[in-house]
């Protein structure tokens, strides 16, 4: 973003403080533009004809440093890029690294379908959401345009955005003629084929990856494409998976991003692609290679990759990567909390247990989904600990016997049950005595991890 203070934005706004946008004043709206929580067009008046020029100028001033590129169409479309800072604590990172998993056009049909389905159906529950895999990268191994097109069509049936991978313009054209309207990302334009690839990108209006291990060449390609009116670009500086090559890959990625954000080099201000899949060029055993692909990917999830192509679908590789990208792209400005209060899980009655937990989103959703999945009928009393987890809030004095007592009274918990008992998380065991004294209820201490509640209930419920 070119502007740093709300004042610079304020100048362009209607200055009526009408509050239509949901903020009390235009100045407050401007501050939220800086925070990237709203866009200029969210002020309804800016859409009026007389503000047309101002809106355009303001959009230019407030657009992110790194260009946002959309891949795919419809609800599965993925936006990449859009970052404004080099360190997440300076604002937040936007648009988590998109993970694309590969298929190739010489796979036997049954294997291909299996793989596509694995990619499509992957889910991991985390902090209240199911995380899925973002895209499929279709590689042309056969060099046969027809075959490639058929495999691309199969992959497109999933509705997931695609990356079409081949240096051959004929091959890419074949697939684009069939599924070009699904806005796939095409890979890649190089120093050799750039004209042909540019033609495709223009003709089918699709985003395109530029590839070169040499950053000057990469910038040359970017400037040339931009000059031709092709702005939906992704830069691949080449991923060398081992040794000095990896070290230099790290340098190229960092330098590209630093140049764009701090060095003011708008010419390379595009999303970056990294291909940890190159780890599979190293002949080694499957486990080592899978591990190596995972660590290479991790380095670049932490450091600036906006999109990556991966091969291994082993769950022990996929799960840590989807969680890592979620962690790194979590907005550090947002309190990750849910509302306090009494929730019902499945269908509890007066004999059902009452569990206590805190309103930190990670804690709450973990506990809630554990209980739902295990089919436990119960109440979950969520204490407002200002968004802190169990152990932290006990240590920090936010989860105390008196706060729990207040919430029990407010939610009229005792009226809903006939056993007069409640269950504390194992990590809050030290509140047991005091809570019994304050509430006169029977206070049980559950396991340390909520995943173990079902087993614990078998031995401890109903209370003796």
């Amino acid at each position: 973003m070119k502007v740093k203070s709300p004042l610079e934005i304020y100048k362009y706004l209607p200055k009526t403080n009408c509050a239509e946008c949901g903020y009390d004043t235009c100045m407050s709206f401007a501050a939220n533009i800086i925070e990237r929580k709203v866009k200029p067009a969210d002020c309804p008046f800016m859409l009026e004809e007389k503000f047309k020029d101002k809106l355009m100028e303001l959009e230019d001033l407030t657009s992110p440093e790194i260009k946002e590129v959309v891949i795919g169409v419809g609800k599965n479309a993925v936006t990449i890029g859009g970052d404004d800072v080099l360190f997440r604590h300076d604002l937040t990172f936007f648009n988590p690294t998109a993970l694309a998993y590969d298929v190739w056009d010489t796979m036997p049909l049954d294997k291909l379908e299996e793989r596509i389905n694995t990619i499509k159906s992957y889910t991991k529950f985390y902090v209240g959401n199911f995380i899925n895999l973002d895209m499929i990268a279709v590689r042309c191994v056969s060099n046969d345009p027809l075959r490639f097109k058929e495999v691309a069509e199969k992959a497109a049936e999933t509705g997931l955005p695609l990356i079409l991978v081949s240096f051959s313009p004929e091959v890419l054209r074949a697939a684009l003629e069939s599924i070009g309207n699904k806005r796939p990302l095409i890979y890649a334009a190089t120093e050799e084929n750039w004209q042909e690839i540019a033609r495709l990108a223009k003709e089918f209006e699709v985003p395109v990856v530029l590839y070169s291990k040499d950053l000057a060449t990469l910038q040359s390609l970017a400037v040339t494409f931009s000059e031709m009116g092709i702005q939906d670009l992704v830069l691949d500086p080449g991923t060398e998976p081992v040794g000095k090559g990896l070290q230099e890959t790290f340098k190229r990625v960092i330098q590209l991003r630093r140049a764009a954000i701090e060095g003011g080099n708008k010419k390379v201000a595009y999303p970056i692609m990294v291909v940890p899949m190159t780890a599979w060029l190293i002949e080694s055993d499957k486990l080592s290679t899978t591990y190596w692909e995972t660590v290479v990917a991790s380095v670049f999830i932490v450091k600036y990759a906006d999109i990556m192509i991966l091969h291994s679908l082993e769950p022990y590789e996929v799960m840590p990567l989807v969680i890592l990208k979620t962690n790194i792209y979590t907005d550090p400005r947002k309190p990750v909390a849910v509302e306090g209060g009494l929730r019902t899980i499945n269908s509890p009655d007066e004999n059902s247990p009452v569990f206590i937990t805190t309103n930190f989103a990670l804690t709450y959703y973990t506990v809630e989904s554990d209980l739902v999945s295990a089919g436990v009928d119960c109440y979950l009393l969520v204490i407002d600990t200002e968004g802190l987890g169990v152990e932290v809030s006990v240590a920090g004095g936010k989860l105390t016997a008196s706060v729990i007592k207040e919430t029990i009274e407010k939610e009229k918990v005792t009226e809903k049950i006939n056993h007069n008992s409640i269950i504390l998380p194992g990590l809050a065991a030290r509140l047991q005595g005091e809570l019994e004294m304050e509430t006169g209820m029977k206070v049980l201490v559950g396991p340390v991890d909520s995943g173990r509640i079902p087993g614990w209930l078998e031995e401890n419920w109903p209370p003796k």
Partner: protein
Amino acid sequence: MGEEKNSIQDLLEFFRKLNVKELHNVEIEGDIEIEVDLQQTPIFELMRAIGYELGMAGYHLMNASKMLGYPVEVFFQPPQVAEVPVQVEKEVSVLSELIREKFEEPKVEYPGVIEEIVIGATKADGGTRSNVVKVGGEKSLPFYYFDALMPNTPKVTIDVFDMPITLAKAVREHYQDVMEDPGDWAKKAVKEYNADMITIHLISTDPLLKDTSAKEACKAVEDVLQAVKVPIVIGGSGNPEKDPEVLERAAEVAEGERCLIASASLNMDWERIAKAAKEHGHVILSWTQMDINNQKTLNRYLLNKIGYPRDSIIMDPTTAALGYGLDYAYTNMERIRLSGLKGDKDLAFPMSSGTTNAWGAREAWMTGSPIEGDSDWGPREYRGPIWEVITGLTLALAGGDLFMMMHPGAVAVFKEICQALYGEKDIRLDNIEQWITLEVEE
């Protein structure tokens, strides 16, 4: 190797002469340029040679072959019917020449420098260690060698406890045979698992565990110092009442060895611990719980109230596992490191990470997901170590210097990736574009 290009045969010959161990330490000067003609050359053989280093990492993943080839669950869904689009060919024009550009490499210089800390003392310095370990000394962000060379790679210290403890199954199986004896435990960690250092945790002193006396517990420190010649870290049980007494005694027992004493923390009598550590010439670990301001405060106390020398402080800003607060830990460490580099002398110290915390994440140790709808989590023997590696690696990228770890496979992979990013591995794979047409065997 210089300028001349080697034939594949030369290279293969070269690698063949080396066994795994030697290759691990080999240094090849200059870039290896290999011209590969895919049609004629045994590319896989070449890659096997180059990939040997990785074989090393894999080698440490115990029981690897046993666990290979487990069935991946696959879900089938009925295929959806795709719409058949019609494309109208457009007339498009493109430029005839590439616009040639130069790429300016940005360079960032910071005014500050992170202290370089030496842990351990050899005979020359009045100790009995065979080598010292150096951490810190950075003038740039981690692995940003293009700004300033990082003088030291991240180091690993393996956790040893003074009594058998509950460990995740995947970790336990590697230490089962030595858990009764801290000396044996330490020896195994150094000899077989390549630990740079050993951390002896005196947890039996915890009143809730065995309540071992400080004197009794310090025998384990002596045992470990006897058993291994690498520098050591001495930790208490974390009990705020007992630790000052235990660590005071430990500092005395280990005099001359320049250990890292873990730790001085605001929630206990840190003054007593720090005074003892200073008096007996040790490095102190300044531990705070994820709070940059507290970290600064405690460091200032150590420097100003105790007069702790600047070359003897390491910080532990607390580690949270991947998925369980790693984002907080990462950002906290990154901010601390940036402050140090930008000139805040109170924060310009190396950082340590309790990476073993990763095993607290349920994804690391549970047999499967308790949550309905999750895809298969895969075998936990593999998940656990990778959880530890990623937790450590992420924090290495935030500025971590010393890593307290446990799983031997995790240690091996973590070291391997740090050495690669550090530039210690002078190997390279050409023709990386071949991933595009690679047929990966399943």
